[in-house]
């Protein structure tokens, strides 16, 4: 192939992904912005800012996101220090810290909803039995804190994984030198490892904050999965959703979504800057001054870490245990005082009948996730390669920025496009729109993966007379297979647990017809069991069914996450302390 042809080819590599993102990210985004100001005036924004509840909603959003980021970072770092400093038990504690990552947001929210339920949940009786006062977790005064607590629970794994990757990338000899010098845990982590892992710590903070800004699932489900959420816990996301799809004030809802996107752009752009600044030395990068920390006495620091890890382990494990407990126990054990928190009798009937009931949804979600995975890998892998090899850093910046935008800002535009294509409530609707979330993330992680592949193989191929395109397909792709497989799993997991888009684009379960019509997913199925969303009329076995649908949601993700764990670690934060 000629030089020109080759140069064109490497450009073509990222064109499919770019074209997709223009159609399904940029166009919906612009639609959202345009429709938020219908007659080219800013009236909807003015009305939004004048709402009496607006300051509270903004406060809730900021509290929820910053609170999540700060708490998850502190806890995740404590956990990461613990794991990094130990020789034994690393795997077990890594798995504990990683566990919430394996539970989709929807399932997490449902479990916590049962835990918080004043009549049903075991927390209050446990508090009472140790002499503490009972609190109304979901009452107006506490619900924002409860919501943030759940969000912290879901965000710990990400913070933990990223910080741990930073800590373990400190060269082994440096760690040993610190040991020979007589540095204790505090000395080492405060003066060597954490300063070196600064980039990872900043990344972890920004990532958790960004995900909380855009998080729809948790506030939506915990505030009752429908209707207008109470102002005491509404975040901008659920406020915007309610305005768009319940109240019908779409321009005002869109204004809220655009406003949220602007706020979320701050951590988003900072994330772009830290990530792009990392490998090249001397480039513009986020400068975080490292304060000279006072020397702490050694053993109190060690015990503080141990205490945090012990407490947080219980905090992480109990809800998951609870989900399995409730799904497989007879209804007779509900509402007992004191609550039964041990497995006494195991029944599987309700779980199996829930699986039967959810069969159309399970098939739909599985098929959609497979298709989304294929589309994602096909489009993202070549784009990631261009970024890694041709140094198209700007493209990477765009990907990270798109990743950091809240999904609520795309959803109305996507709905509009899908509706005008007459594809609402079909599998195609989901398969077309969901890669919007998976492509940017997979491009990001895959480009890290390609960066870690030695260039010599392709150079040898080029010297042997291969064209760039052939070298990519016959040399790079086979080498990158482990990365591609893992990236595919990540895309599958993303797609599997999406809630907002199926909620908006789907209406009914699959009718078993072809072409597939009816595209409710497992997530939308699961929230139908939320006792609050059914208006308080609890059907028989509702708790067991609720937990069962949580498990149905979680199982594939648990299996895949266990397999993809190593890749996630490498992909999210590679490069470590160099530079």
């Amino acid at each position, binding site marked *: 192939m000629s030089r020109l042809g080759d140069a064109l080819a490497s450009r073509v590599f990222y064109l499919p992904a770019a074209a997709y993102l223009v159609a399904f990210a940029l166009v919906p985004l612009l639609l959202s912005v345009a429709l938020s100001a219908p007659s080219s005036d800013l009236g909807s924004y003015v009305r939004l800012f004048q709402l009496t509840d607006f300051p509270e909603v903004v406060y809730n959003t900021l509290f929820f996101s910053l609170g999540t980021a700060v708490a998850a970072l502190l806890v995740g770092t404590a956990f990461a220090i613990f794991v990094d400093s130990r020789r034994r038990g690393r795997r077990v504690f890594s798995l504990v810290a990683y566990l919430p990552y394996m539970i989709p947001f929807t399932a997490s929210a449902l479990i916590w909803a049962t835990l918080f339920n004043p009549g049903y949940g075991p927390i209050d009786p446990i508090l009472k039995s140790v002499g503490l006062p009972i609190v109304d977790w979901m009452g107006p005064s506490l619900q924002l804190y409860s919501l943030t607590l759940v969000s912290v629970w879901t965000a710990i794994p990400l913070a933990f994984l990223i910080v741990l990757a930073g800590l373990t990338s400190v*060269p082994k*000899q*440096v760690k*040993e*030198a*610190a*040991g*020979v*010098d*007589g*540095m*204790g845990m505090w*000395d080492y982590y405060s*003066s*060597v490892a954490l*300063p*070196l892992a600064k980039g990872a710590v900043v990344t972890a903070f920004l990532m958790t904050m960004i995900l909380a800004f855009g998080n729809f699932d948790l506030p939506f489900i915990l505030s009752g999965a429908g209707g207008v959420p109470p102002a005491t816990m509404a975040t901008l996301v659920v406020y915007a959703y309610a305005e768009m799809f319940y109240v019908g004030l779409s321009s005002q809802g869109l204004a809220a979504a655009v406003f949220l996107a602007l706020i979320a752009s701050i951590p988003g752009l900072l994330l772009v800057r830290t990530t792009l600044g990392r490998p090249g030395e001397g480039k513009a990068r986020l400068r975080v001054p*490292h304060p000279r920390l006072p020397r702490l006495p050694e053993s109190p620091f060690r015990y503080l870490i141990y205490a945090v890890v012990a407490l947080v382990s219980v905090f992480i494990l109990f809800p998951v245990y609870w989900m399995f407990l409730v799904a497989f126990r007879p209804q007779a054990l509900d509402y007992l005082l004191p609550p039964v928190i041990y497995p006494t009798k195991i029944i599987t009937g309700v779980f199996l009948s829930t699986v039967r009931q959810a069969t159309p949804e399970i098939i739909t979600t599985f098929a959609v996730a497979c298709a989304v995975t294929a589309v994602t890998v096909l489009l993202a892998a070549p784009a990631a390669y261009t970024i890694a090899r041709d140094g198209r850093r700007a493209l990477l910046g765009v990907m990270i920025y798109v990743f950091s935008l809240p999904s609520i800002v795309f959803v109305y535009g996507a709905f509009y496009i899908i509706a005008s294509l007459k594809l609402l409530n079909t599998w195609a609707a989901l398969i077309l729109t969901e890669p919007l979330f998976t492509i940017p993330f997979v491009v990001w992680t895959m480009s890290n993966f390609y960066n870690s592949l030695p260039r010599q193989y392709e150079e040898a191929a080029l010297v042997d007379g291969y064209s760039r395109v052939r070298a990519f397909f016959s040399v790079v792709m086979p080498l990158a297979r482990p990365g591609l497989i893992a990236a595919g799993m990540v895309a599958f997991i993303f797609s599997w647990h999406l809630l907002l888009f199926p909620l908006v684009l789907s209406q009914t379960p699959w009718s078993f017809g072809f072409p597939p019509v009816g595209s409710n997913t497992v997530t939308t199925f699961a929230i139908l069991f939320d006792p609050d969303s059914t208006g308080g009329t609890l059907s028989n076995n509702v708790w067991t069914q609720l937990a069962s649908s949580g498990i149905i949601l979680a199982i594939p993700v648990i299996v895949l996450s266990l397999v993809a764990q190593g890749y996630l670690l490498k992909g999210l934060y590679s490069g470590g*302390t160099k530079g």
Partner: protein
Amino acid sequence: MPVPDFSARPPAEEGTGVRLEGISKRFGKFAVFDGIELEVHPGELFSLVGPSGSGKTTLLRIIAGLEAQDSGHVYIGGKKVDSLGPAKRNVGMVFQDYALYPNKTVMENIASPLMVKGAKRAEAIKEAAEMAALLDIGETVDRRPGQISGGQQQRVALARALVKKPDVFLLDEPFSNLDAQLRFSSRKFLKDVQRRFGITTIYVTHDQSEALSISDRVAVVGKGSVHQVGTPKEIYASPADEFTATFIGSPPLNVLTVTVAGGASSPLFIPVDGLKDGEYRVGIRPESIALGSGPNGAEVTALEFAGRETIVYLKVGGVELRGVVQDAGGLQIGGKARFAVQPGAVRVLAGGER
């Protein structure tokens, strides 16, 4: 690089010795070594030399306490230290990649072991500055490791290891990342520093000429065991076995099997005084092969110019030999040469009985 003059002093007598007693270590199924015994005298510069993969690094890490032995004991200054962590053994260590803290300045790096021990900041800085001046890196103290040369990083690593006045100084191939010139001057520098401090030093290298040139004593390590311990002279002149014989010296010793019968030998004529009839495994130093005249006729298969001398590759009766000459004027590849093996140059490594 200017080398400070420590006016070469004799090795100090006082200091702390190191003793290894029956050290065994395995990684999974792979036994690195089995029952190592070693004694390092107080104040000496002791080298562990051997091919790469022979377990030198592992042994050094066991002494430092970075790796636990499976059995056996480590004594430092007569005290059993098996249960002590690296920080408690009061050793200074220089790592192959130096392992400087990249986020700290040179000054902070050097002062760090003192601060960790609880020294006041001002005091630690003062001592670190003295050490830096002593090692001639005084002007780099405000920079970070990434901003100084490899040779300077090397000295910072030495300074950081020495500043806490360790009982034992451990170095793992400290010069292997330096270029040849710098490696040469660094050797002398290290030797001077070691004498000046009189500190017991264990030095790991795969480079036998480096080990011979700087050490008071050398241990030759090969595939899981110590083959010989002795002064560089002893090791060079009387290798205890074939492994040592072929590992030490450049070019390496010629090792071959000769048969002695009735006062003559084949395939090579060697001085056979004192050898009974029989088959012997013998070593002959290349420099003991006197080219020019003699009882052996050989073909010259290759010539290798090595500066001061030329290495001559010879083939005689199916045996390959290496010799060295100052002046290869009369020799050419494919030509014939005659040579004699100098009297007293043959070292019997094994054999004697038929």
